[in-house]
């Protein structure tokens, strides 16, 4: 490498920190034998790559209601998850952009004699927004907020395995679990469990004093949340914005208009139908990430005719998922293969044989079950996921070729999760996904799980589930989870339709690094991770 080229490389690094001007940089580029315009392009790129401080970013969210509150027992949708969990708070641990677990409020974590005890050391010098240091007591109170008989927390079922939480000195917390769970640090990253200060023997969620990148400011439920930068944040250099505002813009057209008019800098859930129009806007970037979220059609495997595994397999072969991806999700989804573990999750496999559209195989399995024709009811509503009704109607057409008559029943959106889901023997459902195989299986497919939407219970699967949790050897775990996914694929009652993409749109003024896929909006932490270019 020539000397001038080397100088240019060095300058490139300095540009991001604002130490080299555009003129100086282009001069160096010319010396290195580049054209002035190429130097210009390089300068802009380098200036964007390095995060910069400053600015007031506004985000348009698809959710938010007047009934929302700061209480982390709730956080039903992105209207609360983004500002209160992602921007204002930290959990003990954090899932990084590559899907690995990292310490956050905790400085380190390790298991005790086995994965049944977990020891979290609290980060040195970490403080709440009011300047108070985070202690073990605060962590314990934050967890107990979700536990106990009076808990109305959505995270309660997540924490039922915790037998005891105790402090070991001011900065160490020890969790004792009912049974070993090697994935417990992932559980501790759940957005429902931010660390809050202890006040009068309880976790104080009302004041909004947390540890996160931004300090609580103004809040009008269902309208806006305005937050200011936390100057004492424990992550070096972060956050980059001085102020952020989250606006609830429920109407998708209004959201797009707000972005194109420049009122907001980022919107979640762009309108897929008009995405090409939005792409044409020179000031807008479309951000698309495949996440863990997936749409399923769960069958109750204890109810006829779904109690016959061949009927289930026939139904799995009778659906043309690619057709649904193309027509209903306009290409913004990835076909599923009846394995609810997303490809990006650790230990995920793609089970064989792949369940793709094959009416002949469907007929074969139907015959094996002793049937020529099959007539089944499928209850759907768009409350399960946007496009559920359309997907079901397409499925109805696909299945006809296999001699299966699907009667699509359109249920009301209102109260869908109360009256249809878990009640009707075949319906549509949505999972935002979990970052580990164990977590996803435990919540949805294990025997006795509150949300076991297929009523499936398989002795070998249960055995493996317990084994996998206790096992700390990565190789053995991989084998265990591979077998479980295969079982789910072959025998389970859920048709995993597609993994949905998070399709967001951002102003070109914003810049960012690699985008995480564990939740929407860069793992809900867009305010902390993004910056103005």
């Amino acid at each position, binding site marked *: 490498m020539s000397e001038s080229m080397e100088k240019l490389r060095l300058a490139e690094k300095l540009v991001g920190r604002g130490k080299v001007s555009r003129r100086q940089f282009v001069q160096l580029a010319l010396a290195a034998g580049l054209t002035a315009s190429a130097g210009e392009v390089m300068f802009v790129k380098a200036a964007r790559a390095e995060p910069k401080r400053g600015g007031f970013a506004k985000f348009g969210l698809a959710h938010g*209601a*007047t*009934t*929302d*509150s700061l*209480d982390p027992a*709730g956080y*039903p949708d992105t209207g609360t998850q983004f500002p209160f969990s992602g921007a204002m708070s930290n959990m003990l641990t954090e899932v990084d952009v590559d899907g690995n677990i990292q310490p956050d409020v905790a400085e380190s974590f390790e298991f005790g004699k086995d994965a049944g005890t977990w020891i979290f050391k609290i980060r040195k010098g970490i403080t709440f927004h009011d300047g108070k240091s985070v202690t073990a007591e605060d962590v314990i109170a934050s967890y107990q907020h979700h536990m106990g*008989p*009076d*808990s*109305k*927390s*959505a995270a*309660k*079922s997540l924490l039922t395995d915790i037998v005891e939480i105790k402090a070991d000195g001011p900065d160490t917390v020890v969790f004792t679990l009912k049974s070993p769970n090697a994935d417990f640090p992932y559980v501790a990253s759940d957005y429902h469990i931010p660390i809050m200060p202890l006040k009068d023997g309880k976790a104080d969620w*009302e004041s909004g004093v947390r540890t996160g990148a931004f300090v609580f400011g*103004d809040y*009008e*439920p*269902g*309208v*806006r949340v305005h937050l200011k930068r936390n100057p004492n944040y424990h992550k070096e250099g972060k956050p980059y914005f001085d102020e952020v505002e989250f*606006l*609830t*813009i*429920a*109407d998708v*057209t*209004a959201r797009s*208009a*707000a972005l*194109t*008019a*420049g*009122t*907001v800098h980022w919107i979640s859930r762009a309108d897929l139908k008009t995405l090409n129009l939005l792409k044409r806007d020179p000031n807008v970037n479309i951000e698309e990430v495949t996440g863990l979220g997936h749409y399923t059609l769960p069958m109750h495997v204890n109810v006829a005719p779904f109690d016959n595994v061949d009927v289930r397999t026939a139904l799995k072969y009778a659906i043309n998922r690619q057709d649904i991806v193309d027509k209903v999700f306009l290409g913004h989804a990835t076909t599923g293969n009846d394995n609810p573990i997303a490809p990006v999750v650790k230990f995920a496999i793609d089970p064989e044989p792949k369940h793709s559209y094959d009416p002949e195989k469907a007929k074969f399995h139907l015959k094996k079950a002793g049937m020529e024709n099959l007539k089944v009811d499928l209850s759907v509503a768009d409350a399960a996921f946007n496009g559920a009704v359309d997907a079901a109607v397409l499925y109805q057409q696909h299945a006809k070729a296999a001699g299966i008559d699907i009667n699509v029943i359109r249920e009301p959106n*209102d*109260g869908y*999760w*109360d*009256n249809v*889901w878990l009640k009707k023997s075949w319906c549509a*459902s*949505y999972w935002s996904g979990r970052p580990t195989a164990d977590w996803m299986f435990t919540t949805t497919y294990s025997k006795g799980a*509150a*949300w076991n939407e297929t009523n499936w219970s398989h002795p070998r699967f249960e055995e493996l589930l317990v084994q996998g949790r206790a096992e700390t050897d990565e190789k053995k775990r991989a084998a265990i989870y591979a077998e479980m996914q295969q079982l789910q694929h072959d025998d389970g009652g859920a048709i995993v339709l597609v993994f949905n993409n998070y399709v967001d749109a951002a102003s070109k003024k914003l810049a960012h690094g690699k985008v995480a896929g564990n939740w929407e909006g860069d793992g809900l932490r867009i305010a902390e991770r993004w910056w103005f270019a």
Partner: protein
Amino acid sequence: MNPVVRTILQRLGLGIGTLLVVSIIISLAIEMLPGDFARAVLGQSATPETVAAFQREVGLDRSPVVRYFEWMGGVLRGDFGESYASAGSLAGHRRLVADMIGPRLLNTLFLAGVAALVAVPLALFLGIMAALHRNSILDRGVNVVSLVSISSPEFFLAYILIMFLAVKLPIFVSLASISPSMSVLERLYVIALPAITLVLVIVAHMMRMTRAAIINLLASPYIEMGRLKGARPMQIILRHALPNAWAPIANVVALNLAYLVVGVVVVEVVFTYPGIGQLMVDAVSKRDLPVVQGCALVFAATYILLNLIADIVTIASNPRLLHPR
């Protein structure tokens, strides 16, 4: 007794009865909806234990009749209760229904007021001009424009306005999210687009009623007399026809003003305006009964009061009703 005073008293008494009936119907309707607050808030992540804990805390485990009478007792003392959403909060963080509705009602009244201040005079002026120049180009033009605007759904008008006045030509902003820290001028600027939408929606109705009422009167013998004695057309309309046309005009104006207060949720959603309509929709979808009741009472009271005012105008403008024999 003066007939105006008597009507007011009578109507107010009836109004209170109406409000009572409304509150009972709302309670029944919410009870009949599937699910309750606990299930609606927890959604997919509801488990029987957490739902039960929620219900205990909010008091949903008691019978609806008991809850209704408790609520009613509170209302009689001027306490509209507390949103279910603040259950479990400390005293400082309670969300009282009155506190939730108050600022949003003010927002709604602000938008409705601005729209009405523009729309009502405009409608009267256009109506009178159209009647004066019946079947002229002006009359036809005004009719066509106003009929087109009333026939298009309001969200469509709103999107068209956003497209042309906020995106293509960035004169106004598409998000009408006002906040308490804004000055009046800033607020007026921010709500320009929703206000224009509402004006377009309501002007036609009022303008056509004004035109029809005046044209109707223009055929009466006393107007003919006026013409014969040589009064100018403008004078005939303003001095002779308009005083007799007030009754129908007042009624249709009242109806439209009531719509501005209670019926603009679609416009609120499109422009993300924090008005009372959005509050009611949120509360209904979450089954937050105290808030629904509060909003419903405000809406019902609005209708009752505006109709009362329209009736008073009718009586006051008609000597036969004002001095009954």
